[in-house]
C-alpha cells in the first residue's frame, strides 16, 4: 500500500477541502481561526508528517465545506506555503496556492498598544508588503509587523 493510500484511508472525503503544507507549528492556530471546533462535518487533522518542503507539515481535511475568501486570506497570513485542494467526488478537482490581497481589513490585531485601533471602536486595516516574508503595515499607526507578530482576532 502506498503512503497516499494510507492517508486516504484515514481521511478520505467525498467533497470538501484539504489544506496541505501547513507548517506544523501553525496547525492549531488554523484550527482555531477556521473555528473547526464548531464544524458540522468531519474534520481530520494530521501533524508532524514528514515534508520535503517544510521539514514537518500538517494537513487539515474538512468535509463538506469550501473556504471563504476571507478564510483563505487568514491562511495565507498564517501559512503562506499552504496549498488548498478542493475535493470533488474523492478527487482533487482544484489545487491552488493561497495568496494575500494587497489589503487586509478587520481580522488582524495591531501589535501597537498605542494605536488608535486598540483605543477606539475602529476596524483594523493593513497594507500587505510584498517580499519574501509577509509584513503588514498598519494603515493607522504605520507600524510594521512581521509574521511572528501577527495576531488574528
Amino acid at each position, binding site marked *: 500500500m502506498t503512503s497516499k493510500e494510507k492517508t486516504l484511508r484515514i481521511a478520505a472525503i467525498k467533497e470538501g477541502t484539504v489544506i496541505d503544507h501547513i507548517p506544523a507549528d501553525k496547525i492549531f492556530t488554523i484550527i482555531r481561526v477556521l473555528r473547526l471546533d464548531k464544524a458540522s462535518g468531519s474534520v481530520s487533522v494530521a501533524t508532524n508528517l514528514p515534508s520535503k518542503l517544510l521539514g514537518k507539515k500538517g494537513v487539515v481535511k474538512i468535509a463538506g465545506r469550501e473556504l471563504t475568501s476571507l478564510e483563505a486570506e487568514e491562511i495565507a497570513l498564517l501559512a503562506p506555503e499552504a496549498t488548498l485542494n478542493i475535493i470533488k467526488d474523492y478527487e482533487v478537482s482544484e489545487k491552488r496556492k493561497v495568496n494575500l490581497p494587497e489589503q487586509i481589513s478587520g481580522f488582524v490585531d495591531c501589535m*501597537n498598544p*498605542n*494605536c*488608535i*485601533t486598540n*483605543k*477606539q*471602536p*475602529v476596524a483594523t486595516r493593513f497594507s500587505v508588503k510584498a517580499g519574501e516574508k509577509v509584513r503588514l503595515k*498598519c*494603515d*493607522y*499607526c*504605520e*507600524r*510594521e509587523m512581521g509574521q511572528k507578530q501577527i495576531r488574528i482576532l
Partner: protein
Amino acid sequence: MVKGSFKGRDVLSISDFSREDLLHILSVAGQLEKKPRPDLLKGKIMASLFFEPSTRTKLSFAASMIKLGGQVIGFADVRTTSVKKGETLWDTTKMVEAYSDVIVTRNDVEGAPRLMSEASSIPVVNAGDGANQHPTQTLLDLYTIQKEHGSFDGMTIGFVGDLKYGRTVHSLAVALSHFKCSMHFVAPAALKMPDSYITMLKEKGITVEETDDLDAACKHFDVLYMTRIQEERFPDPIEYQKYKSVYKIDKRVLELCKESVKIMHPLPRVGEIDPKIDETPNAIYFKQAANGIPVRQAILALVLGELE
C-alpha cells in the same frame, strides 16, 4: 503637478507625499514668505484640536492661519471637551466638520489623525501623533535645509542622538530619500536607526553610514541634525543617565565640523547643544522653528484650495 491637486487633501504622513508634492509645498511656502497674503483665507475657520498638549506647534498653526486672514477655534485641553465624557473620536470629528473648513490635530494616540480624516470630508492636518508622524515638522525641516543649504542633491546630512525613537529623524530621512543625498546616522547602539529605515534608504540608492563616533563623522556633514534623547523612552533612570549626554554640540565639536555646517534641532533642547553655539552662524535651529510659519501657511492655503 496637477493644478489644484492639493485642494481637500489630508496631510497625515510624510509618506503620502511624492517628491513633486514636497517641492511644490516648499515653493508655495517660499512665495508666502516673500509676499504675505493677509486676506487669502478670510472667512475660513481652522479647528485646532489638540488632544495632547503642545505649545509651539499649536501656536505656530494658529499664527499661520491668522496671518492669512483666517480664524481659529478649538481646544487644547481634553478635560474641557466631551471627549472626556466618552464621545468617540469619530463623533467629535463629525461635529467639528460641520462648522470648520480644516482640522489641525495632535493626539498622543498613533493613527488618530487618519481616523479623523476618514470621518471628515474637510481636510485634516496631522500636527503630531505619538511616535508616528509629524509631517509639518518634516516640511519645515526640508524648507530650512533648502533655504540655508541650497539644494538637497549632493548634500550630506548627519543625524545625531536618539535615532531609534525620534520620529522627526525617521520622517526627515523618508522625505530626503526622494533626493540624491548621503545620510550619516550617529547614535549609541541602543538608540540606532531602525533597520527597516536603513534597508529602505539603501534600496533607494542612498549612501548610508552608521556610527557612534560623532567626532570622527562630523567633518562630513553639510547639515547636522541634532536630537534630544528623551527621558520618557527609558524605563530605567540609570539607563537614561548613561545616554543622556553622550553627544553634545559645543565649540569643541564645531571645530571638527566643516566651517559651513548648519546645525538643526527640532527643539526643545535640554542640553545637547551648548547655548554658546547659538550666536554662531552655524546655528539655524531658531530660524528653523520660525520657518514653521510659511510652511504651515502653505499647507493651509493649499489644502483649502486657495492656492494651487
